[in-house]
C-alpha cells in the first residue's frame, strides 16, 4: 500500500528527493518575500525595542546608532520614578479603566445579545440598527458633548467617566459578536435541555455557555484592548496626571527641548506586548465582528 503511494512522489521529484521541485522552490521564494513584508511591519517595534535599552545620552546621540552600545535594562526600573509623569498611577489607571470598561460592557451586552438572538420582537430591528450605528461612532467626535456631560454630572476627571465611555462605545462590538454566536446554537438544543429537567439558568450555564464561549472571549479581549489603547477621550476627560492612562502619560516624556525617548519606548513595550498576545488569540473572529457580518 505504502509503496503504491510513495512511487508517484518520487516520480514527481524527478527521482532525486534532495532536489526541490520547481513548485517547492517557488513556495520558499514566497517565504523570503514574506520575511521582507514581516520586517516592514515590525520595523517601528524593533526601533522601539532597541531604543528602550539605550541610555539617555545614547538615544540623543548625533548621528545615532542602530543598537544600544550597552543594554540598559535599568530603564524599565527607573521609568517608574521620573519627574515627567507618575507612571505607577498611569499603569493603574489603564488597568482599572480597562477592567472596569470591559466588565460593564459585557454585563450590558450579554443579556441583549442572548435575547436578540433567541427572540423575535418588534424592537429587535431598531435595536440592532442602534447598536450598529454606535459601533461606527467614536468618542472622538463626541468629545465636547462628553466633556460637558461629565462636568455637569461632576464626574469629569474620574476613572468612572472613562469606564462609562469605554463601555458604551465598545458595547456594540460585544453585542454583535456574541449575538452571532448565540444565533448559531439551535433552539432545539436548549429546549431538549429544558425537557430533560434543566432550569433556564442551568441550560444557560451548562449548554449555551460552552458553545458561545469563543464569542464571549472575543468580546472580552477586544473590549479590553480597545479600552487599553483609548487615547482621544482620555486626553479631554482626564486632565489630572495621576488619573491619566499610559497612552496619554507617554506623551509627557516628550518635551519641546528634552525628550526621554528611552522611557517612551520602555513604556510602549509594556503597553504593546500584552495586547498583541491577547489580540493574536481572537484574530480569526475579529473580521466578522468588526464588519457586522458584512463580509463572511
Amino acid at each position, binding site marked *: 500500500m505504502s509503496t503504491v503511494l510513495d512511487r508517484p512522489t518520487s516520480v514527481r521529484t524527478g527521482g532525486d528527493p534532495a532536489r526541490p521541485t520547481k513548485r517547492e522552490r517557488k*513556495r*520558499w521564494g*514566497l*517565504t523570503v518575500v*514574506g*520575511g521582507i*513584508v*514581516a520586517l516592514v*511591519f515590525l520595523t*517601528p*517595534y524593533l*526601533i522601539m525595542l532597541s*531604543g528602550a535599552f539605550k541610555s539617555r545620552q545614547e538615544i540623543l546621540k548625533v*548621528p*545615532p546608532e*542602530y543598537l544600544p552600545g550597552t543594554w540598559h535594562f535599568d530603564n524599565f526600573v527607573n521609568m517608574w520614578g521620573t519627574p515627567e509623569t507618575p507612571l505607577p498611577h498611569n499603569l493603574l489607571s489603564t488597568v482599572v479603566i480597562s477592567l472596569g470598561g470591559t466588565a*460593564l460592557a459585557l454585563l*450590558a451586552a450579554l443579556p*441583549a445579545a442572548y*435575547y*436578540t438572538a433567541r*427572540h423575535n*420582537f*418588534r424592537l429587535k*430591528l431598531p435595536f440592532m440598527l442602534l447598536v*450598529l*450605528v454606535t459601533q*461606527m*461612532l*467614536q468618542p*472622538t*467626535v*463626541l*468629545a*465636547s*458633548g462628553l*466633556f*460637558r*456631560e461629565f*462636568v455637569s454630572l461632576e464626574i469629569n476627571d474620574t476613572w468612572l467617566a472613562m469606564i462609562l*465611555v469605554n*463601555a*458604551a462605545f465598545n*458595547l456594540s462590538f460585544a453585542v454583535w459578536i456574541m449575538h452571532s454566536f448565540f444565533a448559531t446554537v439551535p433552539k432545539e438544543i436548549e429546549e431538549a435541555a429544558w425537557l430533560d429537567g434543566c432550569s433556564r439558568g442551568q441550560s444557560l450555564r451548562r449548554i449555551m455557555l460552552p458553545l458561545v464561549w469563543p464569542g464571549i472571549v472575543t468580546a472580552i479581549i477586544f473590549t479590553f484592548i480597545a479600552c487599553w*489603547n483609548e487615547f482621544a477621550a482620555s*486626553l*479631554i476627560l482626564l486632565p489630572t496626571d495621576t488619573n491619566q492612562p*499610559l*497612552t496619554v502619560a507617554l506623551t509627557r516624556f516628550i518635551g519641546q527641548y528634552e525628550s526621554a525617548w528611552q522611557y517612551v519606548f520602555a513604556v*510602549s513595550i509594556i503597553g*504593546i506586548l500584552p*495586547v*498583541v498576545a491577547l489580540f493574536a488569540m481572537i484574530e480569526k473572529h475579529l*473580521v*466578522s465582528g*468588526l*464588519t457586522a457580518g*458584512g*463580509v*463572511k
Partner: protein
Amino acid sequence: MATARNKALKRQARRQTTLQALPWLLPALVLIGGVVLFPVGYMIYTSFRDLSRFGKDRGWAGMENYVRLFGLDPLPTVLTNTLVWTFGVVAVTIALSLVLAQFLNKKFPGRKVLRMVIIVPWAASVVMTSTVFVYGLDPFYGIINKFLVDVGIIDEPYGFLKNATAGFLSAMAVAVFVSVPFSTFVVLAGLQTVPHDVLEAAQIDGAGRFQTYWQVVFPMLRPALAVAAIINIINVFNSLPILKTMTGAIPGYDADTTTTLMFKIIQNDRQIDTASALSVVNFLVIILVIGLYLKIVKPMREVAS
C-alpha cells in the same frame, strides 16, 4: 368584530413581547442612551450656547458659533487637508491591502507567522506606534533618517516633521501603515468567498492569471472592499493620535484636519462652544458615511431574516 378582537389581541401580544424584551435590553439601552445619544444632544445644544473659557454658560448664542467657525482663516486649508487625508490614506490602504491579501492567500511556509506579525500594528496603541516615527524621523538623532541616508535614498537627514507639508505626508504614510492590517484581513475574508470551482472554470476557459483576477476575483471582492473602505473612512476621518503626535508641534493649522482642529480649539483655545459647532459638522459627515454603509453593505439583512 372577530377581526377587530384579533387585532387587539395581536397588538397586546406584541406589546407583551416588547415589554418582555425590555429588561434584557435595558442595560445596553441605558449605556447607549446616557453615553452616546445624550452627549450628541448636549453637543448640538452647546453649539448654540455662549460658553466662557471656564465653561460657564452665558446664554443663547444663536448661530454665532457656526459663524465664527466658518469665518476661521485656516478653515479652507483644514477642509482640503481633511479630504486629502481621508481619501488619500484610504485609497492607498485599500490598494496595498489588495496586494497583501492576495499574497497571504497563497500557501507557503511561514504564512501563519506572517499573519501574526501583520496584526501587531493593528493591536498596538496608535499613539505608541506614531511616537516611534516622531523619534525615527528626527533630523539629528532619528534612526529612520539615518537608515534612509545609509541606503542612499536621501543624501543627508531631512526634517520630515519640521514643515507642514512633509509632516502631513509622513503622517499619512503612518496612517496607511496602521490601517493596512485591518483592511488586509477584510479582503482576505472576502477572498475566502470566491469559490474554487469558479477559478478552475476560468482557467479551463483559458483565462490568464491577470484576466482571472480582474474579471473573476475582483468583482467578487466588491462587498469586502466596500466594508473595508467605509470603515476605514470613518476611522481615518476620526483619527487624532497620528497627527497630534507627528505634526502637533508645527505652529499654525497647515497640517490639521477637522478632527485635530476641533481638539486644538478645545485644548488650546478652550472654546467648547465653537468646538461643539465643529463637532456637529463632523458628526453630520459621519452620519452620512454610516448611511452609505447601511445602503451599500446592507449589514442588517442577516438580523432581519
